[in-house]
């Protein structure tokens, strides 16, 4: 597999996209969404921005399956750490007071 060279034009598009995302997240932060939606909106924008950085700046879109596997494994283990810990803290209040 020969190396894929990402063109500067793609890099410029990603740069503009990231700038728009940054503006959007600052703008959205001052808007009072119902419930926990402010956090959801902020995190969604952050995840989208990070995905573009990973796929294009970090060339993962053009990388081997092995690299994809390693990144997926990292995210999977991160999800385990969050899911198990958060489920503990979240459900503690469900117990009757002792």
């Amino acid at each position, binding site marked *: *597999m*020969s*190396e894929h*060279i*990402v*063109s*500067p034009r793609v*890099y*410029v598009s*990603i*740069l503009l996209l*990231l*700038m728009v995302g*940054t503006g959007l*997240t*600052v703008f959205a*932060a*001052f*808007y*009072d*969404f119902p419930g926990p939606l*402010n*956090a959801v909106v*902020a*995190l969604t*924008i*952050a995840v989208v*921005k*990070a995905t573009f*950085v*990973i796929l*294009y*700046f*970090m*060339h993962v879109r053009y*990388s*081997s399956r*092995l*690299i994809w596997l*390693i*990144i997926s*494994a*990292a*995210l999977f*283990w*991160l999800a385990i*750490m*969050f899911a198990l*810990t*958060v489920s503990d*803290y*979240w459900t503690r209040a469900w117990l009757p007071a002792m």
Partner: protein
Amino acid sequence: MPEGLATTHEAASHNALQHHFENMEQQREAATLGMWVFLVTEIMFFGGLFLAYTLYRYQYPAAFATASNHLDIRLGAINTVVLIFSSFTMAMAVYSTQVGNRRNSIICLLLTIVLGLTFLGIKAVEYHDKYTDNLIPGQLIPGHPFHPEVAAPGDTDEHKLHLVPGATVRNVELFYWIYFAMTGMHALHMIIGVGLLLVLTIMAWRGRFSPEYHAPVEITGLYWHFVDIVWIFLFPLLYLLGRHLEGHMG
């Protein structure tokens, strides 16, 4: 070595090719793979910090909103833009090296260093602001404990804490522990990154890189972009969540 033994391997070899690799392609793939494995450990490391943030934010939302609102959103946003721009110049440095443009790759590496240092400078200004507002948690600075002034209702002094209903100063201090741990670890990674970039610049200056050999630029780029991604999450989590509550404060 007898001339008869000059194999095809020998003929195609590059002076940067290590003997345990078949060719430059394989060597570069291995370097990229190794860097990603390292970044996995970094993801888990920062993941732990993000998890701590999540748990305490869930337990003390009012204190976290209070502390978030005290951070300088302008400096935070400017730093986000600076860091994203540095990721772009880093990507361009990789591109310039890949196409063998030595001059442009040196320029891009230097720009990345300058932007990285700009980020650290702005971060230092922010840290100093927190110092003068007595918001350095615990006894991190001996003789200068955490003791912010709490604003009375109606007081608009930006240097005082404007407690959101339900927030306590003690829990605001908890936020600042997390803030300094996370941004401090991030800044340390930036400092290491700037050091790596300096080495790369010298190597590029000496003409060590070529379209065949540029793995060091490539994998340092991966590291730099990773540090950028950490900040992409830190900025909204630390600076932005809780802003919408500003209008609700007494």
